[in-house]
Structures are given as structure tokens and as C-alpha cells.
């Protein structure tokens, strides 16, 4: 299997999808000739022509709105929002239209679109290049929400998303594009080429949406995370020596509740981590479900580690970011509780 960065894996997923299905269309700001500011779509315009991969005006509303129209026609648009922080102008089209089209037309029209966007911080991007808005989508019935944590999954999940009959919000943790960041800003990041999850199957390959995976087996406590936080959680387990079971949710909506409850029933303890601000973050939903389904197995309160309830700051990035130290502390406290 070839080793790829996450960017290469994503590009490969789109490339193969475009090759297999003429209806896959790719566009967004700077996506066409230039290949995207993170270069995910590099080379695709050259290969497939500018009818299938092109630059869009700076209107996230227009990008998603036209994608919905294209999907209603029968295409499978996979569009890019340059940063997740810029998705809000398209929020109405996503929430009021894409998410509800199948339902309100009783299946007469459907909306198989993918909205890709880089998410998360850790790159000194300040409050407009760092946000993690997943919880704003998990509350919306009709959407699917996916967050890969490595090149292998990025490819399999993105191909599944493109083939999915319903709208998928695809959040790409930009801090992971080039390597598995473990939340230690002072330590160099191993490149994906040196990480087993940099091994990406060739050709067509999908990971079904809605399946979590146990990244690290353990017996002491279950850690629920996704995206960058999976690596941070693994590091925290290593750092603290606590035998944590780390679950990579991969898909937040629909959620793989079975994998979660199986683990928590085994460990009796649970820590939930995400980079998004704490209040009403997706972690709240995870806690609510875990306590509902595992109440009688829980030996300690479920802890949440998350971004603080402030905008994402610039200079204080590493005070804000829920790194390995903070996750580790929550593990210790949960074990001691």
C-alpha cells in the first residue's frame, strides 16, 4: 500500500471518485486552477477539465446552493469550503435545504453532496482559521457528519461520503494534513510516511459511514474522540500510563453507539475530548448518550476536555488547545474519582 499524507489521500479519493463516476463534480474557492489553498484538488482540473473541477466565486452560500441544485439534477458535487470557519454563510442552504430536501419532497428530490472543509486549530490561524463547528451540524437531522483522523480513513470515508445518497459534512482536521499531531507543540510531528495509518489502500476503497474504531485497546477508561484529538488521547494515555481505550468515532452523525457502549461498559469510565468549545459541543451529546446507556456501569462522572468557551485566540493557542497534558489530567482525575 502506498504511503500518503492526508492531503494526498483526500486527493486520491476524489480523483478515483471522479474517474469512476462522471457525475462527481468538484469546485470551491481556489479549487480549480490552483488546486485549493491546501492543495487537496491539485491536478484535478488538468485531468478532468474545467467542467468538472473549477474555481468558484467567494460565496459559500453560492457554492453550496448551486451544489444542491446540481444534486437535484443528478450530479454528485463534492465542494470545498476553504476553512470551516467560513461555512456560516452557507449554513442556511445546508440546514434548511440540503438536510431537508429528501424529507420534504418525500424522496422526489435528493441531495447527495459532500461539503469538505478544513477544521480545527493548532496552526496559529487565530479565530478564523481554527474553528471546529461539528456540533452545529450534528444537531441537524438529515445531515451526516464525518471527521477522519488519518490518511487511511480520510480516503475511505471521503469515498463513502461521495457515494452516499445524502448530504455529508466532511471535516478535515488541518493539523493532521501532514502528520499525526499529538498535542505536543514543542515536539516535532512524525510525518504520515512513518505512521502505519499513512498506508492507504489503492483504488476504490470505502469505510462505511457510522462506524467507529478502537484505536487503542485498554481497560481502565474509555476515551471518545475524533480527528486530531484521537492522537492527543493516545499521547495522553502514553504520557500518563493509564490503560485507556481510545475510540476514534470517525462519523459523528450517525453515531456508532454500540462500539461506544461496549467499551464504556467494559471500562466503567469515560472521558470525552474535542477541540470545539465546551458548551453545547458534540461532547455533550456523547456524555448524554453514554450516561443514558451505561449508567449502571459508570464508576465516575464522565469528563469532558474541550476548547474553552472563548473564541480561538492567536497568541494563547497552546493554552486554548486541549493538548495531551489536559487530556492526561482528565484521565487521572477520572481514574481517581
Amino acid at each position, binding site marked *: 500500500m502506498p504511503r500518503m499524507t492526508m492531503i494526498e489521500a483526500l486527493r486520491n479519493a476524489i480523483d478515483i471518485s471522479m474517474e469512476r463516476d462522471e457525475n462527481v*463534480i468538484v469546485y470551491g474557492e481556489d479549487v480549480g486552477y490552483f488546486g485549493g489553498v491546501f492543495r487537496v484538488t491539485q491536478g484535478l482540473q488538468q485531468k478532468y477539465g474545467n*467542467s*468538472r473541477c473549477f474555481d*468558484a*466565486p467567494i*460565496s459559500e*452560500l*453560492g457554492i453550496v*446552493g*448551486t*451544489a*444542491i*441544485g*446540481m*444534486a*437535484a*439534477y*443528478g*450530479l454528485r*458535487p463534492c465542494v470545498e469550503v476553504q476553512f470551516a470557519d467560513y461555512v456560516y*454563510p452557507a449554513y*442556511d*442552504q445546508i440546514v*434548511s*435545504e440540503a438536510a431537508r*430536501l*429528501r*424529507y*420534504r*419532497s*418525500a*424522496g*422526489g*428530490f*435528493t441531495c447527495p453532496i459532500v461539503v469538505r472543509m478544513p477544521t480545527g486549530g493548532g496552526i496559529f490561524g487565530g479565530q478564523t482559521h481554527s474553528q471546529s463547528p461539528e456540533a452545529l451540524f450534528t444537531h441537524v*437531522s*438529515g445531515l*451526516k457528519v464525518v471527521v477522519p483522523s488519518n490518511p487511511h480513513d480520510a480516503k475511505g470515508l471521503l469515498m463513502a461520503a461521495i457515494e452516499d*445518497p*445524502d448530504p455529508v459534512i466532511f471535516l478535515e482536521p488541518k493539523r493532521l494534513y501532514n502528520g499525526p499531531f499529538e498535542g505536543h507543540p514543542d515536539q516535532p510531528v512524525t510525518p504520515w510516511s512513518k505512521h502505519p495509518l499513512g498506508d492507504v489502500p489503492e483504488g476504490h476503497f470505502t469505510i462505511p459511514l*457510522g462506524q467507529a474504531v478502537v484505536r487503542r485497546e485498554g481497560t481502565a477508561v474509555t476515551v471518545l474522540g475524533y480527528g486530531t484529538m484521537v492522537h492527543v488521547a493516545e499521547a495522553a494515555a502514553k504520557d500518563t500510563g493509564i490503560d485507556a481505550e481510545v475510540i476514534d468515532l470517525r462519523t459523528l452523525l*450517525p*453515531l456508532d*453507539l454500540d462500539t461506544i457502549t461496549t467499551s464504556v461498559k467494559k471500562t466503567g469510565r469515560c472521558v470525552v475530548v474535542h477541540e470545539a468549545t465546551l458548551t453545547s459541543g458534540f461532547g455533550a451529546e456523547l456524555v448524554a448518550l453514554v450516561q443514558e446507556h451505561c449508567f449502571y456501569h459508570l464508576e465516575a462522572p464522565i469528563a469532558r476536555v474541550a476548547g474553552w468557551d472563548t473564541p480561538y485566540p492567536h497568541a494563547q493557542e497552546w493554552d486554548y488547545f486541549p493538548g495531551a497534558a489536559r487530556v492526561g489530567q482528565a484521565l487521572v482525575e477520572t481514574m481517581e474519582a
Partner: protein
Amino acid sequence: MKNSRPLSFHVPEPEVRPGGMPDFSKVTIPKAGSVQRPAVDIDPREIRDLAYSIIRVLNRDGEAVGPWAGSLTGDELLEGLRHMMTLRAFDARMQMAQRQGKTSFYMQHMGEEAVSCAFRRALEPGDMNFPTYRQAGLLIAGGYPMVEMMNQIYSNEADPLKGRQLPIMYSSKEHGFFSVSGNLGTQFVQAVGWAMASAIKRDTRIAAGWIGDGSTAESDFHAALVFASTYRAPVVLNIVNNQWAISTFQGIARGGSGTFAARGHGFGIPSLRVDGNDYLAVHAVAKWAAQRARSNFGPTLVEYVTYRVGAHSTSDDPSAYRPKTESDAWPLGDPVIRLKNHLIRIGKWTKERHKQAEAEVLDTVIQAQKEAEKHGTLHSGGKPSTRDMFEGVYAEMPPHLRRQRQKAGV
């Protein structure tokens, strides 16, 4: 240089309010037949004046005059008349059904029937409309069964939308009628996307977007113009300017000295204003715009100048914000009467046959209504199932919805 006179705040106001005398003297109505009809491949820069005038075909004497006349035969016009009459009768019955508690809500087209009915005739099978809630004429003129519309309005057991949608939010892919959204504006840019898709696939089908005067203020309107212009999408972008947006007159959305049509100019989109109460003019302009789109010349923006005679919806009472008789003073008249008079004038119709047709049309609508009511109305008789509520959120029901359905015991 500093001018120290204090600024003042300006809020546009309609000419009159309840209690006042309706006054449309400031609305300039060009003579029928007086506006040029350019070739469809015209350079948009050459026809900017068309966004500031009004294309009209039927004159005061019921004659069809000028370069935009002649796009339909007498028989086609007769059919058009029947479509408009049907829509009007349909509206009246459904309005009444709502008052009788058979449904929760209704919106009528009174005064605007020509716009959607005539436009529909300019399309080909396979084309797609992205309508608002006030274009049921597209369905009526397109032959969609009235019973189905009523089933939807009643949210009954035969409702094609399974009780999920507010009345009149129809959807029919087969009839080129995109699912109506309760959120204003959103469909305008989707129409552009559909048209882009058609061009990408080297298809021959075109799209039509629809929006109200008030809703042009929404962001989707702008995005639609941007994308339509950039990619030269094969789409007709229709603005129905019926003078009102609930209680707000069109000056609140339009501002300044512009027209809604003129908003196309900044994008290099050919933009036309047309008499929306003139079935012939609407059809001719729609056909011109559709031909441009289909010939790969790109988008056209069309503003239909008309008047919302009825209340905004069954939840609205316009006497609170405009003179009761304002619609009588509307200088473009009534679309049904104008077409009727034209048909009489050209010898295709008589007053007697019109009366008779009115009765026939009403009868057809009543028959459909009886048929629909067999399947129930909102609060009585057959209704969609609770299971239907859980279905169709996704192609496949995910586990959490299955759990919830189970909890609901259905």
C-alpha cells in the same frame, strides 16, 4: 469642507396607507407594443433600457400589438385562459377550505395568474422550475393533477408529501417543479446550480428560478446572479414583483431609483421588465429568455410587474396596511379579464362561453376537491402515518432514528 447640517434618516413609504386614496400615478406604464424585441443573441449592453421599461403586448382595446406579439396561437391562448381560470377557482375553493378548518394554511395567486401559467408554456419537458409558494400555475398549466395538489394541501392519507410539508409546498420532479421551500430565496441559487449541471452534462434542458420582489433582498438572490453570470448558466431568473411583501411595499426591497430587473446589469445579465398581467407579454418574454438559455447564451433576468390582489396568506389581513381598493386602481388590470377581452376581440371567445367556462372550471375543481376529501382533510379522515414522520430523513434509516421510532411505538 465638513457639512455640519445634521443627517436625517430616510424610510421609504408607499404613496398611500389605509384611509387614503389609491394612487399609482407615479408608476409609468409604457404603451403596449412600444418596447423593442431584440435578437436572443444580443449583447446585454445594448438593451439596458429594457430593465427600466415594461414590455407589453395587450393594449387597452384588447389588441395584441408590437414586436412581442404573436408567440401563441388562438387555441393556445384559449387554453391559457382556462389555466388561469382554473387556478383562480382552485384558489377560491382552497381558501374556503382553509376557512372551514380543512387545512391549516393557504396562499392564493389572485391577480398574478398570468405569470406562472404563461411562463409554463415557454418550457419544454424536462426543464425544471425552482418556484416559490406563489407559482402553482406552473403545475396547473403543466397538467399536474389538482387532486394531488389538494391531497398535499389537506395533508391527508394520499398526500404525495406524506403530511410532512405545510400546505402548498408542492413538489413534483416529473412536472418540473422543485420542492417549494418555506425559506425565502433559497431556491433561486439552486436553480442556477441545476442549470450549471445541465450545461456540465451537455444536456439541452434549462432551469427557471423564481423569487418575489421582497425576497430579492435575500442573499440567495445575489449568489444566484453571481453564479449565473460567471458560468453563463442556462437559466431564466424570474422576479415576481407583485408590489407587496406581506405588509411591506416593494420600495423597501428596491430602494433608490433602480428597478429589480436592473440588478442584472452589474453582472452583464440581460434584464427585462414585463407586464405580468399580460398573458401574451409574459409568454413572449419567457420564450425569449428560455430560447437564450437553451441556445447557450446564458441567463436572463425577468421582472414581472404585477399586483398581489389578495391577502399574503390566510394568516394575513391587508386592510391593516394598504387601502382596500388599491387593487382596483392597479393600472395593469386583471390578467384573466385582459386575456378574455383579447380572445373576444379576435373572435375566439364570447362573454357567454366565458360564463359557461367559469361554471365548467368550478365544477372540475369541485370534483377534484370531493375526490381529495375522500382521503381526508387535516383534522379528519385519512391521514399520513406516524411512521411516515420517521421515514425519509435519510435514504436509509440510521440506528438513532430507529430507536426513536421504536420509542414512539410505531
